[in-house]
């Protein structure tokens, strides 16, 4: 099965190399697949299974457990409006209704131009800033209906710094050369990791 681009396949191999057991790379590879396609396709799960040495069914089991792995196409921007207590009290319901009429889709669906997916979500840990929402998991606080419209306009014109859905630019792990210890099975670790040493490994 070929899903990953050559570049991403090389990255996938590198990611697998970071773990003592290839299977441990399953979730990072699912992120990589989502970054490439915007969502996790069946082909992606099959190839990940092959890469980490397990069945596609096991990859599906893991992938489907996590809400943030999308197994169907989503818009370039996924908008999650918090619907939990604080936000609900501060008008999340009205905000959702407004969002639905502005985007002309029901919660849980994607606009026909493929730009926006609207979803209700559980607490986003920003209760002091209610009502809040996330665009591709980047917070927007105390959102009024006007601000929502403005946000949509900006996003539609790409006048913003939100990357496309699936992009992991802020969480991609980068291990500096001098701190990388490579893949070592736990039982082979005889000394403390470099970052535990007194001089911080530098």
């Amino acid at each position, binding site marked *: 099965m070929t899903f990953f681009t050559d570049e991403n396949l090389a990255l996938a191999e590198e990611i697998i190399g970071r773990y003592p057991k290839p299977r441990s790379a399953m979730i990072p590879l699912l992120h990589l697949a989502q970054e490439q396609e915007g969502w996790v396709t069946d082909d992606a*799960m*099959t190839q990940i299974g092959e890469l980490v040495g397990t*069945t596609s*069914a096991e990859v*599906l*089991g893991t992938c*489907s457990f996590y809400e943030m792995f999308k197994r169907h196409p989503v818009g370039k921007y996924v908008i999650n409006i918090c619907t939990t207590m604080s936000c609900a009290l501060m008008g999340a319901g009205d905000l959702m209704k407004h969002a639905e009429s502005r985007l002309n889709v029901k919660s849980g669906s994607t606009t026909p131009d493929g730009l926006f997916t609207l979803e209700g979500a559980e607490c986003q840990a920003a209760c002091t800033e209610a009502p809040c929402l996330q665009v591709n998991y980047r917070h927007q606080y105390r959102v009024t209906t006007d601000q929502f419209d403005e946000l949509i306009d900006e996003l539609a014109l790409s006048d913003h710094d939100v990357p496309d859905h699936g992009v992991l630019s802020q969480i991609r792990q980068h291990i500096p050369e001098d701190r990388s210890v490579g893949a070592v099975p736990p039982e082979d670790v005889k000394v403390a990791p470099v970052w535990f040493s007194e001089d911080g490994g530098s």
Partner: protein
Amino acid sequence: MSEQDVTEVTVTVNGTEIEAQSGEMLIAAADRAGVHIPRFCYHERMSSVGMCRMCLVDVDTGRGPMLQPSCMVPVSEGMIVDTESDDTKRAQEGILEFLLVNHPLDCPVCDKGGECPLQDQTLAYGPGESRFIEEKRHYEKPIPISDLVHLDRERCILCDRCTRFADEIAGDPLIQFTERGNSTQVLTFPDEPFSSYFSGNTVQICPVGALTAAPYRFKARPWDLEENESTCTTCSMGCRISVQSSRNELVRYLGVDVESVNHGWLCDKGRFNFEAVNSDERLTSPFVRDPDNQRQLLGTDWGSALASSAEAIRRAGPQKVGIIGGSRLTNEDAYAWSKFARSVIGTDNVDAQLGDGLPAELVLGLPPATIADACEADTVLVIGPDLKEELAILHLRLRGAATKGRTQVVQIGAATTGSDSYAQRSIRCQTGEAAKTLSELLSSDDPLAKQLSDGSVVVILGRSSVAESVDPAVATAAVIQAELPHATFLVAVRRGNVRGALDMGLAPGFLPGRTRISNPSASLTEKWKQIPEKSGLGTSEMLQAAAAGQIETLILLGADPLSDFPDRNLAADAIQKTKTVIAIDNFATSSVAQADIVLPATAYGEQSGTTTNIEGRISRVAQKITSPGSTRDDWMIATELAWRLGGDLELTSKEDIWREIEQVAPSHAGITLERVQSSEMFEGILVQQSSIDLALPVPKDTPVADGYGLRLISGRKLWDAATTTEQSPSLRHLAESPSIKVHPNDLQRLGIPSGTEVRVISTRATENLTVTADDNVQRGTAILPFNQPGVGANRFIDATAVINDIRIETL
């Protein structure tokens, strides 16, 4: 935990002190003490997961009673357990009420109803009524998750038994929990079905009616079923089963947990091929060749069929009669035929193997090991067939032992196998050169050489390919005998009761009780009127003799040489040139269709007796249904023919036969009829002594490859064109369409694209076949599984060659 760490601890369960072993789970200790704790997810052959919470009991370890899941709590000294406390009862009621929130109450139309743990435990431990009045969860029901298994997700209680089995035991994690929370459901990956060879086991261990097997769906209600404990004879593993019937028709086999053999598991082939016994195509009356139209068989009565058979045997005389087959038979039937051949006909031309096994010398003479020995040995050396395909449950046992770290599996072979995933080492050798590779390994400084020479070793020895003669296997046995004298053997001959048939003397040169024809026991000489002095012919020699016109009457005793003998051309020639072919069988197989006299025999489930498995363990085969038409047991046919030839076998019942076996077979002395009928037969009675001194034949060398041809490797697959598989409607389409597999580089060298039809040429035949490129195939070899539907590998094989080479050409 190592064995010396195990100590006895005392636990109080419901006021009674019981002894338990430290580390053991509370639920298992309670089971042994006869206290039943209700459960859904716990299974004694799988790891505990604590999914269902049904086994909550009050446990007091000195800090006061607390509800704890007894499948997750190891016993400890002084533990006080109450499985009937008020708290326990409230917990059980609560758990059942929760489980029934989403479980549909469709018991009246559910196959599990009547034998359902959820139904039974709700009755015994449930609250009586539910407070849940809302709409239950709905799914499409049922959905097929494989050709054999259907899944009803509404009924599923998410106990993790099937998914755990698939991952832990079968090693085919093709079903998984997907989604989460209220939407959690067991599913396969889209378009990737649960096509495990062991999928039927998940149906058996499902504690609700969520998983049902296609061959049994809506066939019977549990309270209509009658059952008998028996032994599966699909292969030589001897798995214990419960044979269940309804209205005189077999409807289901269930695995029975026997420590020494199958641990309760069955392969799907053994589990579902009962359909063949019920087939409409069974032979139910005798036939003879129409004298006016040689292309037609005419129905006849037993009297004339037996008379013509006897006449054909008499006319041929002892030197020109041959008997091929017998591994379908029970031990008793095999004994009757062995006695009939020697004592009445006076021939030693008998062979239960069809030229695809190993010499009886090796099977009976190599130092024996048990299945349990293999699972406990430091190293299991597999030089032979792909166990997953040929002895599927042995594969499961070894996989279990290897993944738990109890043993290390080392394979030497020319092809990849189903054991690669758990083998410590899989050494690829040239086709037919395993002996050479092994002796090179043993004389090297590879740490594996030391592991083999210092530790205990069980060798699983067999023919890795039917396109190879027995010589490579004999050569391997010789190397092991010389260099690893401490090794014991589990000889991988696969067909039904082949081991029992050889024990009963259905092999040239051998008499009942693992004795040579030159050295009969005193009681045997007394009971048998005559014993031929010279060793007779084996199957291969018999067919060669027949092709040369030296066999006049050939008896096929449940044998189909045209499909199962490696060399179809020789078999066809032999059958054609033989004056009278007498076939005793259940079905009109391709060989039976060529016979001159056809005698219908009773099938599995219609006859009782004993069978012997691969390790020499005798267990019971039970009759459950009456046989169709005028079919007869094989031993009766032997006694009838004996009568007509003026002899008397003096055998009047299966019990009679066993008494005589016990008297005349030295290896079986002391295994009395009483023991065979006692509860000792649950685990089976192990017979391992042999009175032959091993004289290994001198193997022929493997010829060097010429560089133009490809060495043909023809192993067997679980799903093939075997008669019982073909006659089972649920199984017959499971065999892959045949294609010959070759390494991509070899194909490229020939300039042939993968997937095209090519001409395959051997010394025996030229046929057109589809060729597929496969990275897993060793360069210089070609893999074509044996006995698949379509162009069979047996057309290309020359049985007299050590190795068969083929060439591939574009059309």
